[in-house]
């Protein structure tokens, strides 16, 4: 059942409200800008599709157009943060942090200055643009960097809250955003704290079979799978791990201990991504069987988001299948 403490929207299964997570960024960054005049936004010729244009309208004097130059965007922002600003840099995740990774490593992460790298169009659900524009390696690139916080919001509302929260951290951070409209699951009342995972589906009083950990908009598919499994008499929990780094070890370990088997869900390569982060933690603290739902060492292709999520087995039936598979592996 849906965890009542998560205060999710009532309509998440029947006709949920839809918005892209990047729209949540667009709103959140304007609110962050109102709260703190040190907030500035830079874009590399992608103001509208990153939703940075909302900030541009609200605070034209704090919006900086750098042209198609992601390396320059990261390093100009590093200089601004070094001075005392709180820059958000916006582009597609394949270009930033894809193209400008070394600049982010040296001038933001080693330098330890509070630039927030916002990678839009993450995942195969970018759709028709095809493999070149579908970022599937960005979590791996960014979570490998010391000093870097990594946040992957599940919906527009959580993205709005996360943007406001990250602006206050005063640390280097990466935020991952999607292009496609996806269900809005959380509400204004849903708790959000960077580094604190939220259990969104629980099974009080029942024997727990599997703990599902999901990040990003695929959380909705994990919830659909949980409901389907409940109907089949299989009890799971679903935890929304919006902060991939630092991981909420306490919540993750307690769920894994209780269930004894884990499924991770992410719209990203299995290698080095969110599931890998969970596996690294569990391998050290409490080894259990894990199944990984995500991209298995391949690039995407053109198609509709729905076709691609199905094709690459990140839809609800694939999560159900992964749960059954991991149950069979339990010793």
């Amino acid at each position: 059942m849906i965890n009542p403490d998560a205060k999710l929207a009532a309509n998440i299964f029947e006709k949920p409200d839809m918005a892209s997570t990047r729209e949540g960024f667009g709103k959140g960054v304007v609110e962050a800008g109102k709260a703190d005049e040190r907030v500035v936004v830079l874009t590399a010729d992608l103001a509208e599709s990153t939703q940075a244009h909302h900030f541009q309208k609200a605070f034209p004097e704090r919006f900086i157009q750098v042209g198609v130059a992601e390396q320059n965007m990261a390093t100009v922002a590093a200089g601004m943060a070094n001075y005392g600003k709180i820059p958000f840099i916006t582009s597609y995740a394949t270009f930033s942090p894809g193209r400008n990774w070394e600049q982010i490593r040296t001038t933001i992460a080693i330098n330890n200055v509070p630039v927030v790298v916002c990678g839009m169009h993450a995942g195969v659900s970018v759709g028709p643009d095809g493999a070149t524009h579908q970022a599937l390696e960005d979590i791996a690139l960014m979570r490998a960097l010391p000093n870097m916080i990594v946040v992957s919001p599940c919906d527009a509302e959580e993205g709005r809250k996360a943007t406001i929260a990250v602006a206050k951290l005063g640390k280097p951070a990466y935020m991952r955003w999607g292009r496609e409209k996806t269900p809005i699951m959380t509400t204004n009342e849903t708790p959000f704290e960077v580094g604190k995972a939220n259990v969104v589906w629980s099974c009080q009083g029942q024997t727990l079979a599997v703990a599902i950990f999901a990040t990003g908009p695929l959380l909705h598919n994990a919830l659909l799978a949980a409901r389907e499994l409940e109907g089949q008499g299989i009890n799971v929990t679903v935890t929304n791990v919006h902060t991939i780094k630092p991981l909420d070890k306490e919540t993750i370990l307690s769920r894994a201990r209780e269930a004894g088997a884990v499924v991770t869900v992410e719209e990203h390569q299995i290698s080095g991504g969110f599931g890998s982060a969970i596996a690294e933690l569990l391998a050290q603290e409490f080894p259990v069987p894990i199944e990984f739902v995500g991209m298995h060492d391949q690039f995407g292709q053109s198609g509709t988001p729905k076709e691609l999520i199905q094709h690459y087995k990140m839809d609800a039936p694939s999560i159900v299948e992964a749960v059954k598979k991991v149950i069979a592996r339990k010793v």
Partner: protein
Amino acid sequence: MQPLTDEEIRELSTKANAIRRTIIEMLAAAGSGHTAGPLGMADIFTALYFRVLKHDPQNPAWPERDRLMLSNGHITPVRYATMAHAGYFPVEECLTLRKFGSRLQGHPEREKLPGIETTSGPLGSGLSQASGYAYAARMDGRTFRVFCAMSDGEQEEGNTWEAAMFAGKYRLTNLTAIMDRNNIQIDGNTEDVMPLEPLRDKYEAFNWHVIEVDGHNIPQFIAAADEARSIREKPTIIIAHTTPGKGVPTIENDYRWHGNPPGKGPTDKIPADKQKEVFLQELEASGKK
């Protein structure tokens, strides 16, 4: 600023050679690091820290200080040595360069040593950091100046030209770039590795004010830095023509000394075990000329 007297010029030249001596000693003690660039930039760093920059060695975080970003982090020995001679820390600490636990990292890190301003090493990202810093400072009406020292070799990096475009577009008049035009890089002479000229025309085309100076003529460099402060239309770049290895005639202009310390360099002219000693002797002799 008042022109320098002959006496002041002599004092600065003597200081620059003392800094060169420290550079040779610290590199020899480290057993690795870059020699040619730091020796070549000693006159300019002396001019910066003893005449041009507004700064306070006792208060490296002084909010009104001018900021000096070093883009080509590998010549950081010249910065460390000059800072030590200027009073930021004891000169003896220079001998910890590149050693475990030292504040003097092989390439400079902002959080390790006060006054370093930014982390650098990978080439081509200093000019854009300095541009971002200058842009942010101007937003707040701050009056300090941002300087960026960079190499000629890193003009091969695309990021450098992205920054040149940015600073030109936004007319960052509070930014002075200083290019060490010493014509060498690790693999050879710049014009063989990847031709860079005409650098003046390129920067002018990117909407910069360009001044060319002899990088070993201290009064000329100081005059150029003063001129940059008076330019109100565009950012300024001082292209400083320098001699790599300056002060040690045997290695001057020899690109093979880009990335080796005394004791580990080419041995066709000076045996390895004599390199430090010969460098110091040649330096002393050239100081007397």
